[in-house]
Each structure stands twice: as C-alpha cells, then as structure tokens.
C-alpha cells in the first residue's frame, strides 16, 4: 500500500521565516498519527502542505501517492479539519451536511445524519450558535462524511474542555474505525493524543525530531541513571537525547535502535509524554534530525 505521506527535504518559508525545514517523512498506511510540537513548530504548515492548501517552497511531498490538492479526485481522498474548526455561522447544521453532499462524490449522508443525531445537534440550529465543542464535532462530521482515505486534523481539541476533548476523540475513533481511514492529528499536548495515536511525529522549531510507530519509539528510549560521566563515555549505539548531571550522578535519556545493552546503570522505560517533552526541551541542543538516522536504521 502507498504511504499516507511521503516527504523529501520538504521546506516551507514565509518570506524569511522558515515554518518547516528539511522535513523527510514516510508514514506507512493505516495509522492514527500524532503530530506533536510546541506552538509555532510548523504542525499547521505540514498539515496544510499535506492537503494542498500550501505549496512547498522546497522539497517534495506526496499524500497517498499523489501531489496534494492536485485535483478533485485527490481532494476527495483527503479530509482536512482546520484549527478552531471553522464553520459557516449563518448556515444551519443541516446546511453543512447539504454542503458536504453537494460538494463530495462519496458523501455518506446516512453516516453524517446519524452522527448529528448522536451528538444531539439540532439540524435547524445555525452553526454560529453552537458551542466550541459542537462546532468541532460538526466540522469533523463534514470532514469525515466525505469518506476520505486520510483525515488531517489541526489541533482539533485545543479549544475544547477536557470532557469535550474526550467526546471528540471518542467520536473521531468511531468515525474512522469502520473505514480504515488513516488520521494525522496535531496537538501541542501529547496527553491529548497519547490514547489514540499509534504513530508519533515530534516537530520542534520547524524540524522533525522524531518519527516512528508509537510502541517502537517508546521501546527504543530509556532513561538511564549512572555514576557521573560524560555522554561520550556511554557505549556506541546509544544516542543521547538529554543529559543531566548532579555532583555524583548523571541522568541520560537515550535512544538505541537495538535492545538496550546491559551496563552499570539503572534503566527505566519512558512514558510517551516524558519522551516527547524531552525532545521538545532539548530541541536546540540536538539540531541533528533524528529521523534521518531512524530511516537509515530501518
């Protein structure tokens, strides 16, 4: 099967500001991909490049094997839900479904109506009168109702309260489960995505720091505590992501693509949240894009 998203040295520049630099990715199909990074890291840019709203200034990107936004067929295969879930305030909920039905060849009206009913939305309600959570759900319904092969969601839960977050993600998973839809969703908080995504991309200051299957990524990283030493003193094959030293002790977060060798240290696995935070904190210290090595290693 073709990759969900394949990017080679992808770059995007707005004037002199680099929004995305040298991004190389190959996301295999059938995943729910979490795209994590601090605000302004380039997550929105990457998603907009993937749906064809932006054209890259350097490098190349294909989505489901085709150039993003290259025509009606490609548009039909990719759904996009923008940040803050924009909807037409003067159109009713039912009008939004009609919009989807008129503009998409594979529109699933039954699914869309059922979802609206499930959510308890009044079809006659103007979308401008909906709460933030309801608006996000409506926008998700429109994006999912066209039955895309890939659904791109930009910070879908950022503006929602915790309960609405859980509801939204639950509905999202229900919507995509039946259809083998791949999903890429971004957030600046890994805790939002931890439960749903099985593939992880960490993006910090316009560069990809980490990309891979969630369980492989967590399996490859450890926190090791040992007597005080320099990172160079660790065995080859251990990439040091972060290092902290006290008078007598050193704590490293390391990545090893082979099982962690035994040594004179105490090793413990890292939770996804710790792992992502480590990458975000140490972004400036390790300018080397980690994916490059990961690609080679694979």
């Amino acid at each position, binding site marked *: 099967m073709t990759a969900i998203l394949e990017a080679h040295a992808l770059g995007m520049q707005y004037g002199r500001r680099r929004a995305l630099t040298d991004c190389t990715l190959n996301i295999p199909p059938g995943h729910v991909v979490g795209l994590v990074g601090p605000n302004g890291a380039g997550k929105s840019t990457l998603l907009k490049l993937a749906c064809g*709203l932006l054209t890259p200034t350097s490098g190349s990107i294909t989505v489901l094997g085709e150039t993003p*936004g290259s*025509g009606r067929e490609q*548009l*039909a295969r990719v759904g996009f839900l923008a940040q803050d879930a924009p*909807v037409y305030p003067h159109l009713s909920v039912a009008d939004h479904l009609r*919009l989807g039905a008129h503009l*998409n060849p594979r529109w699933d009206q039954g699914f869309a109506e059922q979802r609206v009913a499930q959510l308890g939305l009044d079809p006659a309600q103007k979308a401008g009168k909906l709460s933030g959570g309801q608006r996000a759900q409506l926008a998700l319904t429109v*994006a999912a109702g066209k039955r895309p092969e890939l659904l791109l969601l930009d910070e879908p839960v950022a503006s929602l309260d915790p309960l609405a977050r859980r509801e939204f993600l639950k509905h999202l998973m229900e919507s995509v489960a039946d259809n083998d839809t791949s999903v890429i969703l971004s957030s600046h908080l890994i805790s939002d995505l931890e439960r749903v995504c099985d593939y992880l991309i960490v993006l910090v200051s316009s560069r990809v720091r980490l990309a891979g299957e969630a369980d492989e990524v967590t399996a490859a990283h450890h926190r090791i505590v040992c007597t005080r030493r320099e990172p160079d003193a660790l065995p080859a094959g251990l990439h040091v992501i972060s290092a902290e030293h006290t008078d007598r002790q050193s704590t490293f977060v390391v990545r090893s693509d082979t099982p962690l060798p035994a040594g004179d240290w105490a090793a413990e696995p890292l939770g996804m949240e710790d792992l992502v935070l480590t990458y975000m904190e140490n972004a400036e210290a390790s300018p080397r894009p980690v994916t490059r090595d990961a690609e080679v290693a694979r």
Partner: protein
Amino acid sequence: MIWLTWRQFRTQTLLAAALLAAAAVYLLITGTQLRHSYSADLLSCQTQSSQYTCAGLLNGLQTQYNGPLDLLELLVMATPALVGIFWGAPLIAAELERGTHYMVWNQSVTRGRWLAVKLAAIALASIVTAGVISLLMTWWASPLDTMSGNRFGTQAFNARNVVPLGYAVFAFVLGVTLGLVIRRTLPAMAATLAVFIAVQFLVTIVVRPNVMPSTTITMPINQTTMSQAARFDRSQAVTGPVTIDLPTPAGSWGLSESPALNSAGQPIPTSEVLTCWNQMISRGPLVIKGGNKPFGPLGACLAPLNLHVDVSYLPADRYWPLQWIETALYVALAALLAAFCFRRIRRSS
C-alpha cells in the same frame, strides 16, 4: 457548487430584489406622471403656438424634476459601487477571515471551480441588477433627456443604457480581487470603494474625451452665430482673451472651445472688442430667459472684425460607440482582474 453559491448568496439576492422592486415601483409611478406632464405640455405648446411659452413650460418641467433626476442618477451610479462593496469584497475575504475557506476548499471541488462558479453566478446577478436599474432609469429620464439634449453629460452618460452594466461587473470583480489580496473584509470594502471611484474619475475625465476622434469646426462670429451664444466673457484686463460659448451641433458633446481668434488665428485682446461691448452695455442689462439669446446685436457689431472660434466636439452619433467602448473597457478590466484571481487563489491559503 451552484447550490452552495445560492445558499450563501440567498439573503443578498432577496435583499437586492426587494430594493430593486421598490425602486421600480417608484420609477414607474413617477415616470408615468412625468410622461403625462410632458405630453400635456407639448400639446399646449402646439395649440398656443408660442415658442416662448413652450420653452418656459418645458423649462418648468425640467426644473420640477431636477431634484429626483439628480438623486436617481446618483442611485444608478452608486449601484455598481454597492455591488463591489457588498457582493465583491466579502466573497473571498469573509471566507479567509472566518477560516471557512479551509472547509470549503477541502471538499472535492477545486479552488478554480469554486471561484469560477461564484464569480460567474454573482457577476450575472450584478449585471442583472445594474441592467434593471439602468433600464428603468433610461426609460424614466428619456423625456428629460430629450428636452435637455445633453446625453454626454457626466451623470447622464454614466447613469444610462449599457455602461452601468460594465461598471457593475468591474466593481464586483474589483471587490473580489481586493478581498483576496487584502484578506480582510472591511479594509477590502473600503479599498473597493476608493479604487472604484478613482477608476470612474479617471475614465470619465481622462479616457472618455480622448477615446474617439473629435471633430473641430471653425465658427465665424457674426449676428447669426452670436444669436445662439450662451455666454460672452471679456477679461478684466484689456489685454486678456475673449471667451465666447457657442453651441455645438444638437446632441453633440462639446469638448473644447478656443478663445475668440482673429483671421491670423491669434487670440484677440479684450481691447479690440471694447467698443462693441460698451455699445451692448449701454443698451441696458442683459436678460437671458427661455430660448431668448440676446447676443445677436453684439455679433453684428463684431462681424467686421472677422473673428472666429475653433470648436471641437464629438458628434451625436458617437454616443452609442462611446457607450459600448466604455462598457467593453470595464469588462476587459474585470476579465484581467478575474484572471489574476484565478492565478492567485491557487497559491492562497
């Protein structure tokens, strides 16, 4: 796409239709009254067979309708601007501002097609709106236009026949373009108004008089020609030029008139006409009333000086070519802007 365009544009369409209907009712009622008065006046002219009374009657009618005429011409000239501001500018800018372009441009419809349907449908609505209001206006004002014979006047030209249709298409696409470039609705609306007014000024003042070749004739100054003159101005200084306002042929557009020239083609100083001027003044105050033009005796006095005036004008039959050329110019500008929008929207996000 057509459904969505209609759904988003429904309120505006109905509002425009209601306003047009109200304007139509007003124009049809007052236009019919105007026609009645006009034919009644003409009838009494013929029975009384007095030219003076006739001119007076028709003058009265014109004066009576001057206010409404000005207002209605203003309305017809404002229609394209309103179309540009309220239909054109928000078309893309409002989507960009609300972020709804992210939703609509990610349905299975390319941005090019989205824009094409929206532009075509609302440009058509703009043409229909301007067409209806211009048609009504042209019908309403035709008795007044016949009386004044001044079809080339700025308001009379800009608010009749086909040019308003060209203005409307241009203003609409201008609004769309500025909305796409500025990306915010209110500034785009303001910019649309400013640019539209600037273009109208430029075309009316600079382009229109020069777009077709004008005719220049030499009119001698004698009793016959001077009896038609509307004005005769001497300069304060005796060395200054003498200007005479001689009428151009009926229905034509007078573009420029030279000062009084001698047989060598040189402007004459005021001192040369002082004798005749003083003669005229000594006969008492001038009264210009109705069709009465009192400069005939002055012309007779000036005739031996062998003076003439060069008058250039556009003949009456240039009216329709000029209307079509100007309409075509605005439509061409609109097409250029539309082409720019199609290029630009592919790179817009």
